[in-house]
């Protein structure tokens, strides 16, 4: 019974579970990982009870495993997320997303005069400060920080 109560979003046989996503970031995680067009089961839970976060989001993606580079992209929006690889209903690995050195085409440049905001140029950033989440645009060389961060639509 206890187990059943916790299984608000049902278990998957094979795939990836992304747990402990901040409630405001669930749909961004889906977009960053390109799951909008994914043609298999994606289970989304939001505002679920969490001992750690109070409320949390969770995404379960059937029959899909991600590379480290793909996962690290979501660290910007879900720094506390846990990524769990599932095979045959069993956890085969569990790790946290980490902010990478370079971030491509996830964040928009905060500088309105940047070429990436004028033409269809994919954004590229170097991460200069992980702790305070400060990014330097590869093109205009200006900084984008947590406060000014917007994500590529």
């Amino acid at each position, binding site marked *: 019974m206890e187990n059943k109560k916790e299984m608000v979003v049902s278990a998957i046989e094979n795939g990836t579970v992304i747990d402990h996503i901040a409630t405001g970031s669930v749909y961004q995680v889906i977009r960053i990982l390109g799951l909008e067009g994914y043609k298999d089961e994606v289970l989304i839970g939001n505002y679920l009870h969490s001992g750690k976060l109070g409320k949390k989001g969770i995404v379960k993606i059937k029959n899909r495993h991600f590379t480290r580079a793909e996962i690290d992209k979501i660290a910007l929006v879900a720094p506390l997320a846990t990524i769990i690889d599932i095979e045959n209903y069993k956890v085969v690995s569990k790790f946290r997303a980490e902010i990478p050195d370079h971030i491509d085409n996830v964040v928009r*440049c905060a500088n309105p*005069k940047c*070429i990436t905001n*004028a*033409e269809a140029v994919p954004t590229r950033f170097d991460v200069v400060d992980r702790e305070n989440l400060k990014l330097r*645009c590869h*093109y205009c*060389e200006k900084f984008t920080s947590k406060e000014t961060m917007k994500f590529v639509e």
Partner: protein
Amino acid sequence: MSTLKGRNLISITDFSKEEYIEVLDIAEDFEKNPKQKILSDKVVATLFFEPSTRTRLSFESAANQLGARIIGFSDPGGTSVQKGESLHDTIVMVSSYSDLIVMRNPKEGSSRYASEVASVPVINAGDGANQHPTQCMLDLYSIRKTQGTLENLQIAMVGDLKYGRTVHSLVQAMCNFNATFHLVSPQELKLPSSVKMSIKDAGLKYYQYTDMRDIIPTADIIYMTRVQRERFPDPMEYERVKDSCILTASMLEGCKPNMRILHPLPRVNEITTDVDKTPYAYYFQQAQNGVYVRQALMAAILGVR
């Protein structure tokens, strides 16, 4: 063969200290003999998406004196750009017509992007408020020429240190040469902390002032910039500080004999015309040096020097 062959010059940090020196040495040679037809089989494209007088004429004069043919525009009006062609498509097309692209564009980062799309080297002739590396190279050339060295100099920078891209680039470049920086500006226009950080990271010192007279006896170079009224949200503030960054001939008493005054131009009123006749004024020669430096860059990048 030079390491500069086939390279882009987008940002002043793209070149190493040794590479700056190499360009300055080649420029010195062009100053002695500027008319060498070594680019007679080359086509240089100058794409100016916004108006510029000095930079464009200086590039075109440099290319002409080396015998290169020039194609391009000085204003995007009447070109396919006005019809809505993307920068990407313009650059791909021009790449197939030329051996080198010189570009000015008001969008920041546009030159870096162009260099990634182009099949020929790109020289950034100014991308908005971001970078203008050939101006910085000619500043370095002028400093070396007037002081005999780039090492261990007292560099004073005066005026708009917040928005002046030439100031930021020159600080970054001079950090390679053990400079000491003397920064004179109104409170509102102080050097940004990110640029001060690069001075600290290089283990060098800077001092900040609000009165220009304090730096006259110390400076080897006084690098003047224009303080623009529109930088001040409060016009009263502008009126209060506008005279604090004006250099007059009478202020120069007590300066070092080797001291020279530089200015990226255009000048408005921040250097009074009575300074022009003093032996310390160097800003017009500085602009002329731009031709030799741009010759050197084009020749090195095109692999003929």
